[in-house]
């Protein structure tokens, strides 16, 4: 009787875990960012937070109506960024970039970064692979 109860609880627990993981993918992406709200900015870097667990690139973006907005773009960990070709100094304040990503679900000026393009055309991938973020390879983009 108790064995059956134990098995029932375990099966329920596993089912619950399965349902929970299908809701939020393997990572926080779906919990915080909206795959249906892609964003694309041209702006100037104001700050680079080279930190765990996620690096953040702060970008000053000029609106069509002339206002400057400060956006925060989430990137992978320092280790992941390093392996993709970034160093701590790659994104110094003042550098012009084009960045695209997916907007935060709560409407704040935050996005999960995908591709970053420098003024000279170099492209780097900001995100951590396997985040659950939709990722299509664009021509000239990084493999992986």
């Amino acid at each position, binding site marked *: 009787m*108790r*064995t059956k*109860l*134990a098995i029932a609880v375990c099966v329920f627990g596993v089912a619950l875990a399965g349902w929970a993981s299908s809701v939020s993918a393997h990572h*926080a992406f779906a*919990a*915080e960012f909206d795959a249906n709200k892609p964003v694309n900015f041209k702006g100037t870097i104001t700050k680079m937070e*080279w*930190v*765990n*667990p996620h690096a953040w690139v*702060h970008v000053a973006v000029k609106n069509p109506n002339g206002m400057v*907005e*400060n*956006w*925060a773009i989430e990137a992978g*960990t*320092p*280790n992941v960024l*390093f392996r993709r070709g970034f160093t*701590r100094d790659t994104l110094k304040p003042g550098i012009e970039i084009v960045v695209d990503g997916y907007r935060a679900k*709560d409407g*704040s*000026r*935050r996005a999960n970064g995908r591709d970053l393009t420098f003024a000279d055309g170099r492209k780097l991938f900001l995100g951590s692979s396997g985040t659950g973020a939709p990722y299509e390879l664009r021509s000239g983009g990084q493999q992986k």
Partner: protein
Amino acid sequence: MGTSLLPFFQRLADSPWSIGLHESQYAYPIVESIHVWSLCLFFGTVVMFDLRLLGWIMRSVPISEVVGRLRPWTIAGFVIMVISGSLLFFAIPVRSYQNIFFRAKMILLVIAGLNMWLFHARVYPKVIEWDAAGIPPKSARVAGAVSLVLWSCILFSGRMIAYNWFDCDRQPQSALINFLTSCIPTEPAF
């Protein structure tokens, strides 16, 4: 009360050790991984013991035997969890301190400790009477069930710390949230 601790954690956040961990290439992920591995050790042995207390598993094994064999591993796991957890906190002190899930986790930890202490002080001393019993007395079963629920919630809270749902820089938030997290609402950064 909360705001008096904040400057301390802000100073901690500016220390070279904290910055070093926070910006590390390998150290932070290694500490994180150790925290998860030791969680398996600690939580695993706790679950085994609690299930025995509930009388669901290992019914032919005396409780004292289960305690004797599992306890060293539970203690070892706990020590490593505290050390790695402290390092994780120390890497990002201000955000962790103001994180509602971290605070819930700490409160639940205290309650779980209280439950363990109560069990060892009140219930376990009489173990001779029910050591061989397949199904222990109610007080022991309750202790086991409470422990299972509490530690599962602690694990869940720990995982939720990563999510920024109630982070301080996400203003405006409700006054209750700001109070519970010791947030000082200012203009949103973004």
